[in-house]
């Protein structure tokens, strides 16, 4: 297709060099890259935390870590992996891919997007600074009251209460942004039911975040107020109820689990059709089962509380809804198998990770069903069996899915192909290491090993499988080194990708790799689900795909732009506002230290106000066209 460059029509010529251009960028692609790089760095941090934990537990009575250090490490491992690695890597994909997948030039609110990113980054950095300033949160990522409100002498759980609060604001901001983008900025003809599944799943996760984050926000404020202002929300001695926290936390926490996994499900719903050379089997069912999972996800929170002594009637109700979730989840898995069934599979790295996702998610899903069997769950709850379950969902599921996405889309981001040989080493090492690490944990948990224990005695029969798990965790570590080496190596040696290296199906592959700042020189007019595929292939009498003749395009194929493209100008107000907000948050963390806390709060609030007012007063270059 003929491509004319419209750069000369850009309302403004972006400066893309130097640190300043990154700090002030409002380009969704650059923000996506920054999310991705941050997520990778934090993933390494979380991984190192995990390795320390595994060394400690390799044998009985481990002495590498003190109980105190261990508690900080496992708490931060959970927080880091969930809030600083998986969620932001999802945000990276969503930022970069959503506008490209729907044929938009940017997200709806580019500056809000930048603000969300900087708030996330500064928020995580503040959380991690706790390692050096007063100690890290040590009350588990679930932060159960009233343990989390018990020791107010340490600021550790204040980092938790305020840090998650800030990350929550960032998530709500970017979610509102994605929804607005998807609802109002799709290319002509791109109906909701012609959207790629990844974008669809992003809609679902955005809604989940929008509706669940405020609930945990209330819980976090209550925790913070209990710790610093003498409220008694969770103080049993003053008739407060610690179980309230569990309800608020899991009303957020369970949807959050789907926030972590639905985007990965979206990704493999893109890769499987591409590498099977067949459309996604049951597109509508995959989409609606995703919506159903999100919807049901709000009705199952108490299945995390089956040992808390709720009424049996309530337990049974929550158990049944939990089982119900298995149905849409199964539908997704069957549709993925249906997609590759009868296809022509290219088993490259991206495809291997996608298939690995299905294979591992089946295990995680089935062990999830066993949690719905309430009496059995009273044995599994808070044991290593649960640890095994959610790692099968979040590593074998989410992480595999996102890695499949990296191998799939990195050529689009960089214009270069990742090395397939290294990729396969990466997959097989990770697959082996993953199963060796987390498979045995099922057995450990059933054999009575509770989670969150910094040591265990000899003689309970836990030594062998713990040793295996530790070996496995180091194999995962090696596989990640292979991955990072592969990514770095690609910068120098990667083969050129071209626009459409996979002979793919969706419109993001119609633009250059990497795409220009305005994404598409000409925005395509969409007539089909898998629009690009339909521009390349028709079907013969048997229903097999056949290439269309060169130059065959239904008209109008592209939107005729009138008056050129206007892209938003860079702005430094988002980073200022985010910095101010995080500074104010740090002030709250140190509230109990008096003047230091108050000072940081006031200064932070002032900086934020400057950022917000400047932001509001700043003219937007973008205009409706």
């Amino acid at each position, binding site marked *: 297709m003929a491509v004319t460059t419209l750069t000369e029509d850009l309302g403004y010529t972006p400066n893309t060099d130097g640190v300043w251009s990154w700090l002030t960028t409002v380009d969704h692609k650059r923000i996506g890259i920054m999310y991705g790089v941050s997520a990778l760095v934090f993933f390494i941090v979380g991984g190192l935390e995990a390795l320390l934990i595994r060394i400690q537990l390799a044998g009985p009575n481990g002495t590498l870590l003190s*109980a*105190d250090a261990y*508690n900080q490490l496992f708490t931060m491992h959970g927080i880091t992996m969930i809030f600083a690695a998986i969620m932001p890597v999802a945000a990276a994909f969503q930022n970069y891919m959503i506008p490209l997948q729907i044929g938009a030039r940017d997200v709806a609110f580019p500056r809000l997007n930048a603000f969300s990113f900087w708030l996330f980054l500064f928020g995580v950095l503040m959380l991690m600074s706790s390692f050096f300033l007063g100690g890290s949160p040590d009350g588990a990522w679930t932060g159960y009251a*009233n*343990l989390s409100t*018990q020791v107010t*002498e340490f600021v550790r759980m204040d980092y938790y209460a305020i840090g998650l609060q800030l990350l929550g604001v960032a998530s709500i901001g970017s979610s509102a942004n994605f929804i607005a983008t998807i609802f109002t900025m799709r290319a002509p003809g791109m109906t909701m039911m012609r959207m790629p599944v990844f974008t669809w799943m992003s809609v679902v996760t955005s809604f989940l975040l929008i509706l669940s984050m405020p609930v945990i926000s209330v819980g976090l404020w209550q925790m913070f107020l209990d710790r610093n202002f003498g409220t008694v929300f969770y103080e*049993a*001695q003053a*008739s407060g109820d*610690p179980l309230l926290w569990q309800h608020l936390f899991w009303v957020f926490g369970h949807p959050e689990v789907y926030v972590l996994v639905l985007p990965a499900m979206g990704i493999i719903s893109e890769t499987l059709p591409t590498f*099977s*050379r*067949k459309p996604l*089997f*049951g597109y*509508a*069912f995959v989409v609606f089962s995703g919506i159903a999972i999100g919807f049901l996800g709000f009705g199952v929170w108490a299945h995390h509380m089956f*040992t808390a*002594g709720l009424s*049996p009637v309530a337990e049974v109700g929550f*158990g049944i809804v939990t*089982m119900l979730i298995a*149905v849409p989840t199964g*539908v997704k*898995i*069957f549709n993925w198998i*249906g997609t*590759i069934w*009868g296809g*022509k599979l290219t088993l490259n790295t991206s495809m291997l990770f996608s*298939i690995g996702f299905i*294979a591992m998610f*089946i295990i995680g899903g*089935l062990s999830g*069903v*066993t949690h*719905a*069997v309430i*009496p*059995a769950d009273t*044995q599994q*709850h*808070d*044991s290593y069996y649960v640890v095994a379950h959610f790692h099968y969902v979040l590593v074998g599921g989410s992480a595999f899915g996102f890695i499949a996405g990296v191998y799939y889309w990195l050529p689009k981001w960089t214009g270069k192909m990742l090395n397939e040989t290294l990729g396969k080493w990466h997959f097989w090492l990770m697959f082996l290491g993953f199963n060796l690490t987390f*498979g045995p944990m*099922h057995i450990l948990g*059933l*054999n009575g090993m*509770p989670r969150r224990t910094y040591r265990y*005695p000899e*003689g309970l*029969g*836990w030594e*062998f*499988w713990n040793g295996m798990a530790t070996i496995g965790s180091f194999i995962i570590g090696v596989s990640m080194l292979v991955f990072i080496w592969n990514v770095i190596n690609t910068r120098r040696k990667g083969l050129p990708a071209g626009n459409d290296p996979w002979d793919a199906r969706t419109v993001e592959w119609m633009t250059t790799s990497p795409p220009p700042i305005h994404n598409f020189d000409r925005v395509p007019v969409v007539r089909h689900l898998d629009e690009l595929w339909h521009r390349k292939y028709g079907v013969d009498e048997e*229903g*097999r*795909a*056949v290439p269309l003749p060169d130059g065959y395009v239904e008209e109008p194929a592209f939107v005729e732009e009138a008056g050129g493209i206007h892209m938003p100008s860079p702005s430094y107000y988002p980073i200022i506002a985010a910095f101010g907000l995080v500074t104010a948050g740090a002030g709250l963390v140190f509230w109990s230290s008096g003047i230091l806390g108050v000072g940081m709060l006031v200064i932070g609030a002032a900086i934020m106000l400057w950022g917000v007012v400047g932001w509001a007063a700043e003219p937007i270059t973008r205009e409706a066209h």
Partner: protein
Amino acid sequence: MTLGYRLIRPSYGSYVQRPVANAGGRRRRSVSRTLSVVPATVLLAACSSTLPQSSLNPKSAEARQIDDLWILVLVLATIVFVVVEAALVFAIFRFRKRKNDDREPKQIHGNTTLEIVWSIIPALILVAVTVPTVRTVFDLRSPAEGDVVRVNVTGHQWWWEFEYPDIVDDQGRPLTTANELHLPVGRTTELTMTSADVIHSFWVPPLAGKRDLVPGHETFIKITPDADRAGEEIPGQCAEFCWLSHADMRLLVFLQTESDFAAWAAGETQPANIPTDGLAVSGFETFKAICALCHQAVVAEPDGTVTVVGEALAPDLTHFGSRSTLGARVESNTAEHLAQWIDNPSAVKPMAPDLNDLETGRILGMPDYGLDDEEIAELVALLEGWS
């Protein structure tokens, strides 16, 4: 393989499972030993175990009910797993791209009938699981029947307080002990549980699923140990993260015949004697001056007068010498270990006594009082003598 071995050596405390006359040959016992194929072993590992703290080694009516349910769901899940993974693996090998095949695949978009089928089949399987699940939930939560032993359990950071309200001493004080729970076999015990500080969870996997101890709430659990299990010692531990010594908040359950249990209870409701000779005499003075700030003991003067010494903020020490472990089962109860404990408690298990506040009753561990070796020896003599 880890499944094959049995514990023969008391290595950590004395809870260790002793070889038991295997009356009636309990089911699913030794199968695992004979198989070495890894997947089969893993599956069997999920079915049965001889490990002392394993949920797959049920020794009570309630734990067996749970285990039966687990076996059912495990079998169903395994069938689903095998079928679905087999379909996936078959598809990968059957439909991978072959050389010399230039034909494109048929572009199939879906099949509504299939969608309905694979929605309904899982739903049916789930119904098959739900029905026994619901029944078991209500069963396990129904009130205990018959001649029930009642125990009030209070969780503390990081120890367990057990009170038998129906077993009282001559002055009407209920039997109170710590960290070691004695239960008669063949009879139902109902535990009524709460917490003095943060949330804990009572978990003795061979006897019952876990139940949380929530401050401000009362929770219940039933245990009916199998009649042929008398003489066994079963380890358990706290399963809800409760900070520093969560890993070391363990307990030990002694299953006893009715007569052994009665004998034990009779001994426990006797006061300890105030020593009249030996090292223990000065040990008792130290006890009154220091230990009694938190610990309690019911003691009898030589003339038979019974008094209570100390505060009930930490484990009752009246019959400390009769316990087989100390520090919530972190060590076996020997003079040497007790001396180490008194000398520096936080070195035996991590605690935060610096944060103690006796006024509000917040106790986060036993402080190191800097006693010299002689004082420690005296205290050891006193406490080990209180059996």
